[in-house]
């Protein structure tokens, strides 16, 4: 697993994709930080993260689109699948590499928190829960992206299909609002972005944690399954 993780992580920075992602992420967070915090002189990161969730999900597929699709196109899956390594290590190694780049990018945004702490008081409970929640939410997006990437040999198809799912998820809250109650609460309950609102309030709700972690586990597991199944074709 370590070998796969290391290679994947390095490939983000030899193929530019890692830099593209980091640049977009930092520009996006920089703009949002300026608009939400500096401009209005607000010390709370709540709004910053609420907005970020809607936008960030659209750059995360950059990290996942090539994860498995590229291997299939280059036939390097023949190397990985015939190596004495279990499928779960291959999938986890790749997933964690993508997660690592994301966590790295998120770590850079801590600078903003430090900036805030110079000019006002930081609500640490809220900030920490926002970071945890956001990381988990991104984990879900990464897992969905990885899963879509395992279904195809085209990076474009992987990215576009991930976007399709994400668009529906992001607007699930809005769609829910238009529906009568049993459906409304169900959709709200299902929506990963609605769940995030709890974290933004500074609440570390165990059920939300479990929800995110099980979603991640589900898609990682499905990805492993796809890889196993493909041998049968």
């Amino acid at each position, binding site marked *: 697993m*370590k*070998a*796969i993780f*290391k*290679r994947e992580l*390095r*490939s983000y920075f*030899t*193929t530019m994709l890692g830099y593209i992602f980091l640049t977009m992420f930092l520009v996006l967070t920089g703009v949002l930080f300026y608009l939400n915090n500096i401009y209005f002189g607000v010390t709370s990161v709540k709004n910053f993260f609420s907005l970020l969730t809607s936008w960030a999900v659209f750059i995360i597929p950059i990290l996942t689109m090539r994860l498995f699709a590229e291997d299939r196109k*280059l*036939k*390097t*899956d*023949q*190397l*990985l*699948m*015939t*190596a*004495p*390594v*279990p499928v779960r290590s291959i999938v986890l190694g790749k997933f964690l590499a993508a997660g690592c780049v994301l966590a790295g990018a998120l770590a850079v945004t801590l600078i903003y928190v430090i900036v805030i702490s110079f000019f006002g008081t930081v609500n640490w409970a809220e900030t920490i829960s926002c970071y945890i929640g956001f990381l988990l939410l991104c984990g879900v997006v990464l897992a969905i992206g990885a899963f879509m990437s395992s279904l195809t040999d085209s990076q474009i198809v992987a990215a576009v299909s991930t976007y399709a799912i994400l668009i529906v998820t992001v607007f699930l809250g809005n769609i829910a609002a238009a529906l009568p109650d049993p459906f409304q609460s169900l959709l709200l309950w299902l929506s990963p972005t609605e769940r995030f609102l709890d974290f933004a309030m500074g609440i570390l709700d165990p059920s939300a944690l479990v929800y995110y972690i099980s979603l991640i586990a589900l898609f990682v597991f499905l990805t492993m399954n796809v890889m196993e199944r493909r*041998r*049968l*074709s």
Partner: protein
Amino acid sequence: MIEVKELVKHYGDKKAVDGITFTVNDGEILGFLGPNGAGKSTTMNMLTGYISMTSGEIRIGGIDIIEDPIGAKRQIGYLPEQPPLYPEMTVSEYLCFVCELKGVKDIQAHMKEIAAKTGVTGVLSRRVGNLSKGYRQRVGFAAALAGDPKVLILDEPTVGMDPNQIIEIRELIRSLGKEHTVILSSHILSEISAVSDRVLIMDNGKIAAEDTPENLARSEKRDTVKRMLIRIDGESEQIEKVLDSFGDSFTYERINEDYELTLNADAAEDIGRKLFFAFAKAELPILMQKEEEVSLEDVFIELTQKEEKR
């Protein structure tokens, strides 16, 4: 070392591999020979655990590939038809990655060793994507050697190489065959007969023949017609008159200046001598007379076409 029993692979309705059984002994070099689409790559993909079989059994060093896939894979080095390379990596990065993947202990030293064996030491710092096809093939070969596996499975190992490289790689395969069990595939016969201890001719997913290269050529010699090529100085009418006088000992065909005779099996004996005197009598000098040997090529064509007619 390798036991394969009743191996079958279906792709939908298509039977890519149709019940093949064979074993490969320790330290043996087995050649898979067959036309395009014979099922060579499919068989190799099953041996290495890349795809699963529809039915049948594969044991590598006594380990069943279904019961303990990791244990079986640990013993195999595989060079697929298209070498599985990451173009953005340098050769040394790539080989180190493969070594790590295969759990090699002293990665740097081992990487240098396999690079030296396959002659890629000079390109270690180049990016894989910028290498020529022959060198990419070599890097793929080096990757197959990583971890010093007991079994090497090489799918068309010399494809895309120049003649000098082919000879080098053949030497390498032959030397590896002393300590490893090797299966290699090709549609080029000279390729296979040059290095293999035993040849397995595949066609349509079945085994059409199995023997040493020498035996295959010999057995075929017995029951096929011989051919002879002659060149005579003279008018074609005169030549054909002489040839006609031999009756049904052979049939002939004109190819440019020359005549190709297809001899009848029972008349084949001593025909060269008879031809010489016949043409001498007609005062037509024989400029060239050549018996064509039955090559493995003929055996291959014979066997695979027979299969098609069925």
